[in-house]
């Protein structure tokens, strides 16, 4: 057991820290849920890509550095520490890319990964549907063979597509065998958002911004080479992505340790009732525990083991930790908490609103608790 990073890893950390110090915009970018903010964030992705920082763990041929999971964790720690911009390309690079690297053809990887890494093409996900939220197997959007037999025709509706209002591409699953039940007969498609028949309706969020969108598919033609994985195998292909979403790659611990550190600073600056001391201490511990757990899991992965069903605990823990950190900050702010001013209060309020989505998306925590009970504790289904 060794919980120190190697000299090489520390050198990489220093390099990342230096680059970020030199390049992270001094002023926060405008919200990525606005058109202007979206483009500003895309430009930032390009800046990172040019110096090979956008996808450090990817193979070098697609724009990465072919680094291991610990280097990725180190990079993330530095990225959050530097308070660098949100990743507008995160759906692509953290959700789609791992799936594509596993299931994609060489041609698909060569075609899609480099522009994803550079921010030239931003991806949104077409997972949920109005009647298939927690119950993803209830998907009704469908794909049928086109007349020529060389492609597919998509119809239906997807919703809760983050970045859907501005993205160039969408990935998602569609029912290719209407006779098959629930998890069967689904296929994973890659769809250009400028395809004829695609209509996007932005959904205003609780805070008035438009991060989500509904996407309507009306006889959208999609060529054969935009199927990812086997036809009819969409569920298992999608679950690989969902696995990475809940597992190691979407929610890097650095995000929580950074927020917990800021909470500590806020507590030092503002003081606060004694009750807050416990919340602040617990936030610090939970963020650090999540970091340690990630090192633990990554050590397994580095030894060639699979992530394991323990990952279903992660989603519950990081999402509740996020809510707790931001809720504690609002409690410290007291009557100032409702102010949408620039700087501390508004930022924590935004973060709180965002955190509240955590226990809902990527499989509600209710579903996750079922998974933990059934798969880790062996309790019966139903």
């Amino acid at each position, binding site marked *: 057991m060794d919980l120190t990073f190697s000299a090489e890893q520390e050198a990489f950390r220093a390099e990342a820290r230096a680059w970020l110090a030199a390049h992270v915009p001094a002023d926060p970018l405008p919200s990525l849920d606005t058109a202007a903010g979206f483009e500003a964030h895309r430009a930032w992705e390009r800046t990172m890509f040019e110096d090979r920082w956008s996808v450090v763990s990817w193979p070098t041929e697609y724009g990465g550095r072919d680094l291991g999971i610990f280097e990725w964790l180190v990079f993330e720690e530095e990225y959050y520490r530097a308070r660098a911009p949100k990743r507008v390309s995160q759906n692509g690079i953290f959700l789609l890319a791992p799936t594509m690297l596993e299931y994609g053809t060489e041609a698909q990887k060569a075609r899609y990964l480099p522009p994803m890494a550079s921010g030239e093409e931003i991806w949104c996900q077409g997972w949920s549907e109005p009647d298939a939220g927690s119950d993803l197997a209830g998907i009704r959007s469908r794909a049928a063979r086109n007349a020529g037999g060389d492609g597919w025709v998509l119809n239906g509706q997807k919703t809760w597509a983050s970045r859907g209002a501005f993205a160039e591409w969408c990935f998602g699953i569609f029912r290719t065998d209407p006779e098959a039940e629930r998890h069967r007969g689904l296929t994973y498609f890659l769809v250009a958002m400028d395809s004829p028949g695609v209509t996007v309706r932005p959904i205003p969020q609780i805070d008035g911004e438009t991060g989500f969108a509904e996407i309507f598919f009306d006889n959208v033609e999609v060529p054969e080479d935009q199927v990812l994985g086997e036809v009819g195998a969409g569920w298992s292909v999608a679950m690989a992505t969902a696995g990475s979403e809940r597992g190691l790659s979407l929610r890097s611990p650095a995000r929580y340790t950074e927020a917990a550190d800021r909470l500590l600073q806020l507590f030092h600056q503002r003081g606060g*009732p*004694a009750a807050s001391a416990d919340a602040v201490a617990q936030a610090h511990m939970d963020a650090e525990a999540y970091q340690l757990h990630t090192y633990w899991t990554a050590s397994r992965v580095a030894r060639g083991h699979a992530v394991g069903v323990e990952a279903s605990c992660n989603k519950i823990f990081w999402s509740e930790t996020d809510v707790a950190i931001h809720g504690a900050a609002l409690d410290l702010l007291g009557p100032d*908490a*409702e*102010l*949408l001013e620039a700087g501390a209060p508004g930022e924590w309020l935004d973060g709180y609103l965002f955190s*509240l989505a955590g226990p809902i998306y990527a499989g509600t925590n209710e579903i996750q608790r079922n998974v933990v009970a059934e798969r880790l504790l062996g309790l019966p289904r139903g």
Partner: protein
Amino acid sequence: MDFAFTDEQDALRQGVRTVLDTECSVDALRAFELADEDGRAELARNRWAVLAELGAPALVVPEAANGLGLGDVDLVGVLEEAGRACLPEPLLETAALAAPTLAALLPDRAAAAALAALVEDDVSFAVGGVDVTVDGVVSPTAVSADGTLRTPRVVGARDAAIALLACRDADSGWQLHAVPADSCTVYPTPALSSSRDLSTVHWPLDSETLLAYGVAAEAAVSLLADRAAAGSAALLVGLADRMLAMTATYAKERHQFGKAIGSFQAVKHQLANARVALEFARPATYRAAWSLATAQPTLSHDASMAKAMASDAADLAARVGLQVHGAIGYTWECDLHFFLKRTWALSRAWGDAATHRRLVLAQVRRGAKGTRTAMSDSRQ
């Protein structure tokens, strides 16, 4: 012992609910949030006129001052309904804070004039300059070099005719003023909830507007803080009730995995826990109103307990409400967010649950559950 509302009190509450169902429907809230500045002001004016016609703002003003001469126990149901409807206008500030504060200062001339405007001109009041902390009541009002006072987070200032504002300095202690709107400069503050109108108000210190100073002002401000805790507890009880009702309805309608999500225990038990919290916050809130009405020596304790329990109950209802609604609840199109935002703001305004828990403990430790005035020396 008869811990119950009278038929008249029930009827008053029902009357207010009926009016607000129309005047303050969710569609009305939506229109209010989307309106431009002039449109917003007009909607506010019109709705206030309806409330004034009901007599709500002057409910606890004595008949001698041309009010309805009712009490805090009559008012608490009205405030609960205002919370339930997410009413944007400053009914708490006008009817539950300004009106009784001014009435208690009669026959003072400035107080009488302000109260007359409330009763006869049907104007609304802004209130600000008082914060509740674990160390007691403090004023966030700052004095700038030119003698102008700056009070942040004043509620209702954009539409008010008069602002009830407090300030305090270490030398001369508390002052309480009734400042005409035309003496104030109002800077609206971007804030979480469109149904809570916050501004920073700049105002001149003027002996003409002075209502009370020194010990009298401190007593008035302390009582106002208790009134605010008790009254905002009533609003929060109403908000919790509404969010629970909306969420239960949604849980019956929304189907996943082939059945209504409300038939899953995970959903049932979250809602049940929120319902239980509300069930026990309610009597605490009604007791605080009774303690106000009858000037109990335990008033500060009772008001703090009500605010602590109602804040926690409403926060829980909001949390469960959003979780059960899922992504839908996270959209502006869903009605829920009006109530969520109002709850998140109000549960922390006038002292949050943790603050009031400490105040309760301080009162209990003092043995007599005494009044809040003396609390600043009970720091612990």
